[in-house]
C-alpha cells in the first residue's frame, strides 16, 4: 500500500501554528504524525468524529441528511430575532468571512473565542496601542523573555523550543544559554520549573506589580512598599534592571492577566510598562493565543466589520461593545433566541449559567467532533477538519498569516460550504 510522508504541514491546534509537522498517510488515511507535540498530534490523528448530520426530535438526536440539517438551520436562523453566531477560532479565514456575511444578512451578533480568552488583551491594545513583533524576531533577537500568567509548557508545548526559549537564533546561537527567562505566575507551573527566575504573584495583584515595576523604572523606588502583591521589592528592582539592560525583551501575556481581577486594565498597564521600557531598550509584548486561528478571526472580523470580536449587527450596522455584546453577556442576560456554535465548544468552555440559557434556545452546532455542545444542540452538522482536510489561511499568534495544508480527502462538507448553503437558504426564506 502506498505510504506517503507529507512534510511542512501546519499544525491546526494552537496559536504557535508550527509549520514543520510531518504526517504519514497510508491509503488515504493518516497513520502517524511526527514532530508535533501531544496536543497537535492528537488533533491531526483524529478521534471519533460526528458520523452524520443530526436533528433533535423528542429529546434525541437523530441522523439526517446534510440537506435536512442545513434546511433546519436556515429556518432557525431566519426565524430568530436575536441570533448569536459564536466560535470561529478552529477554522480558516475563508469560513470566517462567510460567517460575517451570514451575521450581516440576519442581523446577528457574531463573536469569537477571544471573548473568553484574550478579549481583554484586544481591549487593552485598543486603549493603549499594540507593541508587537514576529516570533522570528523573538527567536533571532530576544535575550530576555518573560512568560506572565501563561504556561507554554502545557498550553503551547513547542513554543519555547521553536521560538522563545531553547530556539537557536541568528543573534542567539546558544539558544537557552543566550536568553534569560522569567515566569511570573500565581503558581509554580511546569514552565516556571524550567525558567531562570520564577516570581510568584498573589492572585489578582498583577496590576499592582506592573505599577510597581513602572514606578521603579521611573526612578521612584523609594515610594514602593517592601512587598507588592506578594513580591519583594528587591526582586522587582532586579527585574527592572534585567529589563532595562537586555538587548531585546519580550513579555508573553497569558490568561493569568485576562481572566483575573483587572482584566483589560492589566493589559493597559503592561503595555504602558513596555512603552516606557522602550526609552531604554527594545521591548515588546505578545499575547499567547490559544486556538490556532483565533488571531485570524480577530483579523477577519476587523477587516470586514471594523471590530475584532463581539460584533453586533442587530442595528443593521456593526456595533461593538464587549461587556454588552460578547457571547456570555447576551447568554447570561437571557437575551438571545437562537445560537450557532461553530469551531469552538461553548458547552465545555462557558460558565454553567450560560449553558442554562443555551439549553433553552434552538442551538446549531457545526464541528468535526462531538463534545459537550453536542449534548445541548438541536441541529448538529459535522464538518471537515480545516488544516487537515481543507486548506486555507490561519494567523499565527504574532499575526503572520500562514496557509494551512490539506493532507487527506474527506466526504464531510467544509465549514465554508455548510455556511454558504445555509446563507443561500436563509436569503431565500427571508425574501
Amino acid at each position, binding site marked *: 500500500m502506498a505510504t506517503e510522508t507529507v512534510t511542512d504541514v501546519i499544525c491546526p*491546534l*494552537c496559536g504557535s501554528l508550527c509549520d514543520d509537522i510531518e504526517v504519514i498517510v497510508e491509503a488515504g488515511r493518516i497513520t502517524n504524525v511526527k514532530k508535533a507535540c*501531544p*496536543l497537535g498530534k*492528537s*488533533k491531526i490523528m483524529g478521534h*471519533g468524529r460526528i458520523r452524520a448530520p443530526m436533528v433533535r426530535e423528542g429529546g434525541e438526536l437523530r441522523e439526517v441528511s446534510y440537506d435536512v440539517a442545513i434546511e433546519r438551520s436556515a429556518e432557525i436562523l431566519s426565524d430568530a430575532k436575536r441570533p448569536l453566531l459564536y466560535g470561529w477560532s478552529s477554522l480558516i479565514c475563508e469560513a470566517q468571512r462567510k460567517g460575517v456575511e451570514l451575521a450581516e444578512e440576519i442581523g446577528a451578533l457574531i463573536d469569537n473565542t477571544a*471573548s*473568553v*480568552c484574550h*478579549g*481583554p488583551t484586544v*481591549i487593552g491594545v485598543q486603549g493603549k496601542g499594540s507593541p508587537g513583533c514576529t516570533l522570528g524576531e523573538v527567536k533571532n533577537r530576544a535575550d530576555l523573555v518573560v512568560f506572565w500568567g501563561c*504556561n507554554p*509548557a*502545557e*498550553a503551547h508545548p513547542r513554543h519555547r523550543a521553536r521560538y522563545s526559549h531553547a530556539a537557536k537564533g541568528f543573534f542567539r546561537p546558544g539558544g537557552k544559554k543566550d536568553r534569560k527567562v522569567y515566569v511570573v505566575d*500565581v*503558581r*509554580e*507551573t511546569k514552565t*516556571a*520549573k524550567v525558567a531562570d527566575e520564577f516570581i510568584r504573584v498573589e*492572585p*489578582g495583584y498583577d496590576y499592582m506589580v506592573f505599577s510597581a515595576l513602572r514606578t521603579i523604572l521611573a526612578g521612584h523606588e523609594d515610594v514602593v512598599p517592601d512587598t507588592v502583591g506578594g513580591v519583594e521589592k528587591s526582586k522587582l528592582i532586579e527585574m527592572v534592571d534585567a529589563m532595562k539592560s537586555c538587548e531585546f525583551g519580550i513579555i508573553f501575556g497569558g*490568561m*493569568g492577566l*485576562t*481572566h*483575573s*481581577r483587572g482584566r*483589560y486594565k492589566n493589559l493597559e498597564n503592561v503595555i504602558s510598562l513596555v512603552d516606557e521600557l522602550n526609552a531604554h531598550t527594545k521591548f515588546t509584548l505578545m499575547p499567547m493565543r490559544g486556538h490556532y486561528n483565533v488571531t485570524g478571526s480577530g483579523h477577519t472580523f476587523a477587516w470586514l466589520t471594523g471590530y475584532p470580536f*463581539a460584533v453586533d449587527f442587530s442595528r443593521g450596522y456593526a456595533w461593538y461593545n*464587549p*461587556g454588552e455584546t*460578547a*457571547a*456570555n*453577556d447576551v447568554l*447570561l442576560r437571557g437575551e438571545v433566541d437562537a445560537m450557532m456554535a461553530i469551531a469552538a465548544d461553548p*458547552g*465545555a*468552555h*462557558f*460558565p*454553567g*449559567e*450560560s*449553558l*442554562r440559557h443555551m*439549553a*433553552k434556545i434552538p442551538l446549531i452546532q457545526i464541528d*468535526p*467532533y*462531538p*463534545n*459537550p455542545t*453536542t*449534548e*445541548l444542540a438541536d441541529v448538529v452538522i459535522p464538518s471537515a477538519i480545516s488544516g487537515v482536510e481543507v486548506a486555507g489561511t490561519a494567523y499565527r499568534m504574532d499575526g503572520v498569516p500562514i496557509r494551512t495544508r490539506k493532507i487527506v480527502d474527506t466526504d464531510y462538507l467544509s465549514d465554508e460550504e455548510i455556511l454558504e448553503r445555509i446563507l443561500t437558504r436563509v436569503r431565500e426564506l427571508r425574501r
Partner: protein
Amino acid sequence: MRKVILITGRTIDQGKNLENKMSDEYLDAVARCEMNESLLSEIGATEGDTVRVKTEFGDVVVRAAKDDGLPDGLVFIPMGPWANAVVDTDTGGVGTPGFKGVEATVERTDAPVLPLKELIASYKEA
C-alpha cells in the same frame, strides 16, 4: 471546609483531549482539583478522593490531585465543564467571565463525580 481561591486553566492532558471530550480520558484530565500536599491533608483527603468545590456561583464534585507548585490557599481545576460549574459569571465589563481568582471552599466528600453527559443535562430545564 477550607476557604481557598480557585483558578482554572489549560493542562497538557486537557489539551490532548480537546477534540476527544466525550471520553473517560477527558474526564480524568479535567474533573480534578489540584492543591498542595498540606491543603490535601488539611481537608483529610488523599489523591483520588472526591472533593466538593463550592463558590457563590455553584458547586461541583471532582477528584483531588496533588500539585506542590500551588501555594497554600490556591486550588486549580483544569478548564472545562466541571470548572465552569463554579466560575464567576460576572463578565467584568469586557465580556470575559472570571475564570481565575474565584473565592471558593473545598471539602472532602463521598459524593461521586458527575459524568459529563449528566453534568451538561443538569442545565436543561426539567
